[in-house]
């Protein structure tokens, strides 16, 4: 970890839904091998930012650079192919498809069969419960298992950058811990992670660097540890007075 290389760079991003502007000029960078956390309350623009990066939404203005390539005009299905995966908010698994079909859909943008098989094994190795229940429809799963599936699914595109939108949402503390451990494991494997969370404690203790997003602008940024001890963060996101 001697030299950080910029993997994702966002420059003055503005996104609007009709006339309502949700992201009002956001700039940040994610460096290779890091876990970067986007912190913020509901409606701060976190999900909108992720959706714009992955091409599901179009930016009004601003630039998105991934791996030295400008991607803000590219369609979503091409962006996945570049190695940028997005595990959307609310998991969005396909409830009526089997676990295996779900996972294979994660690899939709790829055509190398051997690589897909390898990544399938990797996902099963990471979450053995998925392997045990691979023939079952995903809708029968608990929230935590669905989250595992969602993460496993996004791993099948063999991403170099993985964007996770609120992976701890609606999970029991135990399951949340399990997910957070997995995220740390993924970083060890060399996957760069952009994490959006409301659970500041868990996210920041994991993150190398963090940004605080409030009503569409970044108000604070620092290393994860520094943010965790920052008075303003503690007040606003950790419930201390």
């Amino acid at each position, binding site marked *: 970890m001697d030299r950080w290389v910029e993997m994702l760079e966002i420059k003055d991003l503005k996104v609007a839904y009709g006339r309502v502007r949700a992201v009002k000029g956001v700039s940040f960078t994610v460096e290779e091998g890091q876990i970067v956390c986007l912190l913020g309350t509901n409606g701060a623009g976190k999900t909108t930012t992720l959706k714009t990066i*992955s091409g*599901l939404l179009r930016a009004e203005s601003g630039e998105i650079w991934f791996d030295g390539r400008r991607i803000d005009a590219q*369609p*979503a*299905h091409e*962006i*996945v*192919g570049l190695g940028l995966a*997005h*595990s*959307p908010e609310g998991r*969005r*698994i*396909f*409830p*009526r*498809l089997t676990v295996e*079909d779900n996972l*294979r*859909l*994660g690899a*939709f*943008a790829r*055509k190398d069969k051997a690589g897909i098989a390898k990544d399938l094994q990797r996902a099963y190795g990471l979450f053995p419960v998925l392997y*045990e*229940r691979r*023939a*079952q*429809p995903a*809708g*029968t799963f608990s929230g935590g298992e669905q989250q595992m599936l969602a993460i496993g*699914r996004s791993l099948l*595109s063999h991403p170099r950058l993985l964007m996770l939108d609120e992976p701890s949402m609606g999970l029991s503390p135990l399951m949340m811990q399990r997910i957070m451990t997995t995220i740390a494991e993924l970083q060890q494997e060399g996957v760069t992670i952009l994490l959006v969370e409301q659970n500041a404690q868990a996210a920041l203790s994991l993150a190398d660097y963090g940004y605080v997003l409030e009503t569409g602008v970044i108000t604070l940024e620092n290393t994860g540890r520094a943010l965790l001890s920052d008075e303003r963060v503690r007040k606003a996101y950790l419930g201390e007075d």
Partner: protein
Amino acid sequence: MSLPGIPVAIRRRYGPVARIVTIACGVIIAASAYLPWAYGSDALDNVTYVGGPSFIQFIALGMGLVLPALVVCSIRWPAGFGRTRVGWIRGARALATGLLIIFVVIAGAISVQLGGTININYGAWVGLAAALIGFVATRFLVQEGAPTVNRLKTPGWLSILAIAVVMLVMLFVAYYALDQSNPGTFVTFIVYTGVGVAVLLRTGALGWLTAATGAHRRVMLLAAFLVAFLFPFTQGGSDANMSIAAQVLVFAATAMGLNIVVGLAGLLDLGYIAFLGSGAFVAAMLSGTAMATFDVHPPFIVTMLLSGCVAATLGLVIGSPTLRVSGDYLAIITLAFGEIFRLSMNNLDGSDGPDLTHGSRGISDTGDLNLFGFDFGATHTIAGIEIGRFANYYFILLIWLAIVILIFSRLNNSRIGRGWVAIREDEKAAEAMGVNVFGLKLLAFASGAFLAGVAGSIKAHVDISVTPDSYVFLQSSFLLAAVVLGGMGTVLGVLIGATLLQLMPEKLRFVNEYRLMFFGLLLVVMMRFRPEGIIASERRQLEFHDEDEELAERLDDNLGPSTGAVAVEGASR
């Protein structure tokens, strides 16, 4: 089908009595086949004799005997063989319900055909009464857990034998049903078939059959194709039935194309008939007859591909602006496209603009095909059996249908097929997974249109004439109904749906005016009791019955014993 159940405690108490009553009812129904059912010989296939059952009565006899057999089996093997469960009581219930429906239909048919219930003889009343009592009695039997016979290991020869039997039965059903000129017999026979399938389904035998034949897919497909190929030879040179059969094949091949669009990609297309029509018109314009509007007559293979390409191009033209919007708009626009097509074909009569279609008269002579020196218009004699004009077309349509099915299943099991299903399930999530949503939708639309276009080019020659009035909205809705009723996304279901919907109007001329009413009723009933269609793809089944305990249990069963299954099994003892 979920009817309000009777409490388990009551069932336990009256179960043994109900068993005896059910057995008795089955025997009485079987015996009633030897009694006269009607006073006049015109009803059904003459059911007036004492002691000489007609064919329709013979089937009732057989089914009557199966009912006690199922009940006896349920006593002898309450849970089936070892760990494998057979749904004896489920089957008995389905059979009793079916027999009741059958006797109601029979009584109805006799009344309609002879003019009043007065013409029903005592035999039919006995059968009806026994069926009614049997129906009630089976409700008191304690049901066992969901059948699991499909997990039984089956030796190869048995699977092949099962395939052969299924094929022969299907050939016979098709032969017999097509041969019936009496609508009463036809309807009764179709109901018999339906009841037979329902009993197989409920006992779990259908699941076993599917699993056994699934292991020998190639043999199964080959056998099915062979049987269909042999069908014209059972007709003894008669072309009347072959004409119907050819229409069924055109309809089935078109429905299979629509199945890609609706069943796989989940796009609602209400103007699909226009693609069939455009293919037919292209073929007619290029047919080289006196009526053809172009002075070019390419070989039919070229015409066929051209028809498909024209239809696919139309699909792209309609699809590219509309597939970006959500489902409802697509339905409206395709509906409008169907109308635009019909009106354009009506108006391209040369009064202003080019004369391409001769307007509403259409191109009334397309001539017969002649491929590799084989004249489709002539009667050929093969192995001493005359093969007429429609039989010739039947063969080429059969080959085309086989190709369409091949394309469909290859697409379904491919990466593209998975993408389509993902789009149908959750478009936004699919997009996030890297599925090119718009591109794949467009591909579904265009490939569906292509298949319909090619089918249309053959249809133009089968029908001899091509007129705009044969390609109207009603036909689109029939195609859609065939897909939905049969089972979206399945091959077998859509084939069955298309066959039934095309065969019914041909055989039931007497309901002609009420055809649409019956059709609407059928749709309502189906949507209430079996929304996934006659044959359900596993995915679809889950979609419509996600609160169905049985299904959940069966899926659970795939993982080994579950506590729920054991509890149900215990209750049935």
